């Protein structure tokens, strides 16, 4: 029962009125940005980072987490009703969800998705509750060499799994590492890349980078995109699925929960990949796969369950190893650092209120989201009518004014605008911004542990191979780095010019 004590104490943290309020605020914002066109959860979290300065760490993370998994619920609504995926992780929901809507079963599709999301999310929280302390206790004896290897592997995986050109994603990651070195060298105290600027002497803050590259960069990019004006239906009726529907979808929900949970843990995995994998699996398993794309309930329930389970379980590497598994988790990492909390294996032991408070808040958040997606779904459907043209300047102003409030300085605002341009240009030229921010966040940890381990090894880099865990991690690192090159070489031998194009579509889907 000793194990359960901190878990139960976590509930008392969640039930504090402030935390409950921030949880509600988080999931409502998440739901809203899921429904509204334009900003994704990463951009929203980046823009709202200044909000977290004034509150307790646990409260801040409860809210940011709520935005993240709330967006998984909200993204479904536009997929089903408008055939426009609100989030990348809801793209596959479009195929069957929109067809169900055409057949007059929009309510059923939304209801199934909501129930699936709830089951997947809750299952993943339970999984997290049991798995996270195990992983953390395993990682407690990690030393600097293991951390160097783990951080390297994490950055590489996130860069190579992202859609788009791998080399460009790696370039973005390397630039992120380079940006992290700006400022004072922790070992010698010398200034690096500051060009004599006093404002750069302490390094570049994480918040302006995140707000600029994720937030403002995405706002500018969206200005250019054609605003797809689609007419939203005014009413959705009958969101409670029938017993038959539930029975038909229950298998998909179960499989989606498990699949999503495990895909979410992997670095570079996460909600988007989980939803695609679940759709593919359901289609493969189905007795009549031709029903898919024509309104099969499993095609909605499975992916929606999986993306929510993955969104929840992707907290495991962050909270137990201190390694963010994707760009959104990198933002959480940054938010925790701002609060003076370093995520890592000691978090469960040293900061049980924070750890269990955040984990348990997800139960509450999921219940709130279930309520918002079933009885209150009509309100959010109405919000679909708010136009992107009105939202864009509001979000831009929130970003600028929010950036000012961090340190009451115009320098931060200028930095945000500069990084906004960088973020926009990166998107334009096909460089993923995610790996840059992730690498920036991990840069200091990586350099620190690399230099510490080299000190331990007396300057001999082969020392990394003498420790079993760091050696294994580095082996995986090399495999991940080399395999795609070999595979593409082999594909080229087979003379596959069209392979590139089909790949593109698969990634998009």
């Amino acid at each position, binding site marked *: 029962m000793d194990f359960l004590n901190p878990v139960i104490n976590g509930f008392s943290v969640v039930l504090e009125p402030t935390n409950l309020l921030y949880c509600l605020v988080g999931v409502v914002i998440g739901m809203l940005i899921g429904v509204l066109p334009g900003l994704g959860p990463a951009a929203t979290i980046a823009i709202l980072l200044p909000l977290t300065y004034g509150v307790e760490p646990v409260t801040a993370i409860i809210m940011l987490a709520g935005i993240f998994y709330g967006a998984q619920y909200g993204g479904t609504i536009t997929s089903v009703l408008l*055939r426009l995926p609100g989030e990348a992780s809801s793209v596959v929901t*479009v195929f069957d969800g929109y067809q169900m809507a055409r057949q007059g079963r929009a309510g059923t599709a939304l209801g199934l998705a909501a129930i699936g999301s709830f089951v997947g999310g809750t299952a993943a929280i339970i999984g997290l509750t049991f798995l996270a302390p195990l992983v953390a206790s395993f990682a407690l004896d990690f030393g600097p060499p293991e951390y160097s290897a783990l951080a390297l592997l994490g950055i590489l995986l996130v860069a190579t799994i992202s859609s788009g*050109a791998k*080399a460009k994603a790696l*370039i973005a990651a390397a630039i992120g590492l380079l940006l992290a070195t700006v400022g004072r060298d922790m070992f010698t105290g010398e200034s*690096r*890349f500051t060009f004599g600027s006093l404002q750069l002497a302490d390094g570049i803050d994480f918040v302006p980078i995140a707000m600029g590259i994720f937030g403002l960069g995405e706002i500018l990019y969206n200005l*250019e995109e054609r605003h797809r004006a689609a007419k939203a239906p005014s009413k959705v009726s009958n969101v409670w699925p029938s017993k038959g529907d539930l029975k038909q979808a229950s298998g998909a929900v179960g499989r989606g929960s498990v699949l999503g949970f495990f895909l979410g843990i992997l670095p570079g995995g996460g909600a988007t990949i989980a939803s695609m994998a679940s759709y593919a699996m359901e289609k493969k398993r189905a007795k009549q796969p031709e029903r898919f794309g024509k309104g099969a309930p499993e095609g909605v329930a499975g992916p929606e369950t999986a993306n929510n389970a993955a969104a929840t379980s992707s907290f495991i590497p962050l909270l137990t190893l201190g390694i963010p598994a994707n760009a959104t988790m990198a933002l959480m990492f940054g938010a925790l650092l701002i609060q003076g909390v370093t995520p890592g294996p000691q978090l469960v032991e040293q900061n049980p209120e924070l750890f269990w408070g955040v984990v348990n808040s997800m139960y509450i958040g999921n219940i709130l989201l279930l309520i918002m997606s079933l009885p209150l779904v009509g309100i959010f459907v109405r919000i679909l009518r708010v136009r992107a043209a009105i939202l864009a300047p509001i979000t831009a102003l929130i970003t600028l004014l929010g950036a000012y409030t961090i340190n009451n300085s115009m320098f931060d605002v200028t930095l945000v605008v500069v990084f906004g341009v960088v973020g926009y240009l990166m998107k334009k030229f*096909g460089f993923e911004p995610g790996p840059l921010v992730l690498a920036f966040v991990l840069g200091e940890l990586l350099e620190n542990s690399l230099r510490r381990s080299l000190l331990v090894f007396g*300057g001999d880099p082969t020392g990394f191979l003498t420790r079993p865990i760091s050696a294994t991690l580095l082996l995986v690192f090399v495999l991940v780095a080399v395999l795609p090159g070999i595979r593409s070489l082999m594909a080229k031998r087979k003379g596959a010019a069209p392979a590139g194009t089909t790949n593109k579509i698969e990634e998009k889907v």
Partner: protein
Amino acid sequence: METTPAVSAGRDGSSAVPSGGYARNDLPEALTPEQLAAQWEAEKPPAAGALANVGSSLVVLGVGVGALILSVAMGLGTPGAPQPGLWPFMISCVVVALGLFQLILGRRNRDGEKFTRMSFAPLTGLATLAAMVALMPMIGFEIPALVLCIIWMRFLGGETWRSTLVVSALVVASFYGIFVLALGTSIPHLF
């Protein structure tokens, strides 16, 4: 807030063809996932050509070489006793290597986007943002914010004048209420 659905009408003048085309396509129709994926692919902005790749690779190379020179100047030391420049030196080497790789082998990748007539929108947006950053310390945030809202909604977003003016005024007033009156932040303000 609820004004006439002027989005499509307002946009047609300034926007490219696909937005109008999409609205028509949005009538109920049966599309298989493959067709839908192909349609999304077709709606994407035109891909950038080889020139964009050369340009971006050269920028990357420039950053890499610059960082390389600066980190050598900081002193490298040995792995056992590193100077401040060693770690940046290692990263810069990776940046240069990847930049060269991208320059030579990335020619045929089509993952960038071409700059089109639509790219003036972000450029205008950026100009208003820069103006706001420059003017805020002098005349406070209210007037620049109002101008920014009007430009973004009317000219970049194609809203009607009426909704633009009403919403912009509301937005600036509520920002004033939140940031100045309620939170008491020190954001430069005129009134």
